[in-house]
């Protein structure tokens, strides 16, 4: 179910989750799923990065996407994404530690691709902030989204595992080679107006 757009900073009262019967075996009114959800409040308070007073180059905007279960933030440069990648290699609770191969490749690709975007005058400088996570074998996954457009980069844990870019918009979807020109091109495509 799609989340409704909320104004920036909205931290309103929790609203009841839609009630769905999980199975026939639970008496009505006692099902543990039938409890208030604080989903929207949690998302806003936990996951939207705040602007840093000490990093004037980083300017963030945030919105709740009408697409389901997605928060979109925007950053002007690669520093936030690189910081996330650095955080993975430093060891982050709830994340598998990436391989050195994936770490080095992801970091260099992001820095180079964002730099490539900045050089292209026709492309808006602001790209959405990436979701940065790991797979369970030491690869790194990055995901960007603007409305229905999505770009994902999968950096394999080693040279024998697949690295690729996946993109989709509506019914259009495909994979591309993961390299700087393709990643920069897809991020530019993502932010096209």
């Amino acid at each position, binding site marked *: 179910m799609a989340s409704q757009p909320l104004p920036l900073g909205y931290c309103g009262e929790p609203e009841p989750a839609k009630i769905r019967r999980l199975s026939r075996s639970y008496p009505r009114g006692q099902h*543990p799923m039938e409890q208030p959800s604080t989903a929207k409040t949690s998302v806003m308070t936990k996951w939207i990065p705040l602007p840093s007073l000490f990093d004037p180059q980083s300017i963030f905007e945030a919105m709740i996407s009408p697409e389901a*279960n997605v928060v979109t933030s925007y950053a002007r440069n690669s520093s936030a994404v690189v910081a996330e990648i650095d955080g993975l290699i430093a060891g982050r609770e*709830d*994340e598998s530690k990436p391989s050195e191969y994936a770490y080095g490749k992801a970091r260099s690709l992001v820095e180079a691709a964002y730099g490539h975007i900045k050089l292209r005058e026709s492309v808006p400088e602001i790209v959405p902030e990436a*979701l940065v996570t790991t797979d369970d074998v030491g690869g790194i996954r990055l995901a960007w989204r603007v409305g229905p457009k999505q770009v994902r980069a999968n950096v394999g844990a080693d040279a024998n595992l697949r690295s690729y870019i996946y993109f989709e918009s509506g019914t259009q979807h495909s994979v591309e080679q993961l390299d700087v020109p393709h990643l920069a091109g897809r991020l530019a495509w993502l932010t096209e107006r």
Partner: protein
Amino acid sequence: MADGEVDNNPAVDVRQLTAVDLLLRVLAKPKWLVDLHEAFILRSNETTTGLSVCFDCTPAEAVTISGLNRSHGVATLTVGSVTALELTVVPDELHHANIQGLPDKELDPDRAEWFASRLAQAAQIVDRTRREQ
């Protein structure tokens, strides 16, 4: 059995699933709450069995069944939304089933990512409780 069907003859004696039954997917990482498609990419231990889901249980019970040491919530989706994608739901235990037909991202990344998007669209996060066991 053809894609898009529910296996009603599992190895163990479990009830038949119908299109309106809810499947629970335990969320192993907090970032899956931000962008749910990651929850529907097969993990390395699921490539042969299928995507692990639970049914007829509470979120807390689903976490216990999943065997994860730590979890951050649960998403649900209906059996019908899964079979509509021509994937198969195969119950193998009293409260556990596998969604079969999802490709490994190593073998078919385009379809693996596309299915992850569709399943994320169909799913709803119903629980955001961090649990450790």
